[in-house]
């Protein structure tokens, strides 16, 4: 319980250089009159799994979009591998984004090109690989998510779960240092969801990939998260390991941690 915050925590003391993958410092964001994030601060250590929990509409996806630089904060800083992504633009912003992979909640596949070309797209844009090498690597990424036979199919012909897996393959295309994942198991059957969790844990363990995951799936969060954070009404109300969260003195956090919801 000692490390479990029950209110907004003060920002952690700056970690040693090179050990932090992402740091949010006092980030606030409003859309119109609705305040979505209110002074959010947290650190994500490089090579760790950081899971953001919370009820629907509490700003979890918006937090991920801040880290990717898709949404700019009204106040505060978003440091990605040492760079304040919220202050960057143009080629500098692209340079930082190449270190990140993003799996969107609804996969967001480009529907005018095939599944394989979706995965190949980042490689075509940012590498000098030959066409055959790109195709081989895209197939390799699709194989990792069990979609090697779907290379030529159009996204519209895939099921929701398959689209999600194809989106993950695209997010992995450039072997990113930091992977942002919005609801990895939503729309997947339990077996496939487990396989995806195992794949992500494997990336973290063997490749040192930093995972930042938004999920409602508590078993999945326990498996992938070294640190879990609970976002409620735009604020981090608790943060710690799964065991610490289980023992939180915040009733809502305990209720969330014991829920059996798997999607």
């Amino acid at each position, binding site marked *: 319980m000692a490390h479990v915050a029950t209110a907004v925590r003060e920002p952690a003391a700056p970690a040693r250089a090179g050990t932090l993958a992402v740091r949010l410092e006092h980030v606030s964001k409003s859309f119109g009159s609705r305040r979505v994030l209110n002074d959010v601060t947290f650190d994500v250590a490089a090579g760790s799994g950081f899971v953001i929990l919370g009820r629907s509409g509490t700003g979890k996806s918006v937090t991920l979009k801040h880290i*990717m630089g*898709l949404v700019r904060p009204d106040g505060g800083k978003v440091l990605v591998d040492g760079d304040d992504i919220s202050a960057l633009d143009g080629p500098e912003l692209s340079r930082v*984004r190449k270190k990140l992979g993003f799996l969107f909640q*609804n996969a*967001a596949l480009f529907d005018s090109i095939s599944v394989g070309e979706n995965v190949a797209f980042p490689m075509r844009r940012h590498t000098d690989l030959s066409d055959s090498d790109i195709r081989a690597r895209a197939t390799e990424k699709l194989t990792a998510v069990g979609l090697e036979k779907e290379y030529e199919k159009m996204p519209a012909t895939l099921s929701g779960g398959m689209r999600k897996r194809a989106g993950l393959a695209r997010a992995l295309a450039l072997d990113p240092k930091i992977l942002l994942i919005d609801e990895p198991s939503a729309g997947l059957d339990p077996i496939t969801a487990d396989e995806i969790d195992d794949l992500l844990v494997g990336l973290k363990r063997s490749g040192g990939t930093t995972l930042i995951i938004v999920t409602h799936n508590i078993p999945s969060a326990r498996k992938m998260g070294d640190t879990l954070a609970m976002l409620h009404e735009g604020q981090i109300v608790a943060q710690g390991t799964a065991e610490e969260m289980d023992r939180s003195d915040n009733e809502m956090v305990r209720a969330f941690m014991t829920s059996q919801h798997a999607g």
Partner: protein
Amino acid sequence: MLDRAGHAVTSLLAQIGEASLFAMKAAREVFLPPFEFRETLRQVYELGLRSAPLIAVSGMAVGVVLSMHTRASLERFGAESMIPAGLAIALVRETGPLTAGLLLSGRIGAGIGAELGAMRVTEQIDALEASAVDAFRYLVVTRVVACVIALPILTTLMNFAGMVGGFIAETSANGMSMGLYFTRAFSLIEFADYVPATIKTMVFGFIIATTSSYLGFNTSSGTEGVGRASTRAVVMSSILIIVSNVLLVRLIFFVFPKAGG
């Protein structure tokens, strides 16, 4: 009541300001590297070449109708021989460019508004940005360049198709030969008739691409928003083309006095 009206006016002015900044950004970035040649070529094909059948068929129909109207007027004065030249000048100076602009604001404007709108609501634009691709350059600038290239070419096609339509009407009415028809048609057309009026359509292309891209890029409210963006893209592009045409014709008369003669 006054409050609501004031809010509506403020909101409209804010949107006009935003759209103007969007268009200025597009105009500036057309000339800045990196250039998306491959995507631009694809857009020239999608927006330009695939519009050719619509323009060719419409142009011929316009030519036939113009020829019939011109014949009805000139017959009274025994000036039927002037029909090909009169038709050609009417087409090249005004009817061709404006009709092509309006037709393409329908086809291209609706297409861009709906496509970018759908990409926005399904987060595909965010996905492009997440892939470290500048979505504005990739989606907007390429379409602007494609439209600016395609409009003059399609307008020339419309002019030619209109003349062919006029020939069909003439040869049906009095058996005029193709050689005589086209000799007469081109007899009075000068540089000042064709070039400024056709270059004017580059402005129409810019208007169509930036207006519909702006509306598509800023779509919200799901599929309903996509439909609204598509409809507004056509309406706004058409209005802006008609209004800008007045100013451009005035400018052409000022720079090329012979074009008004």
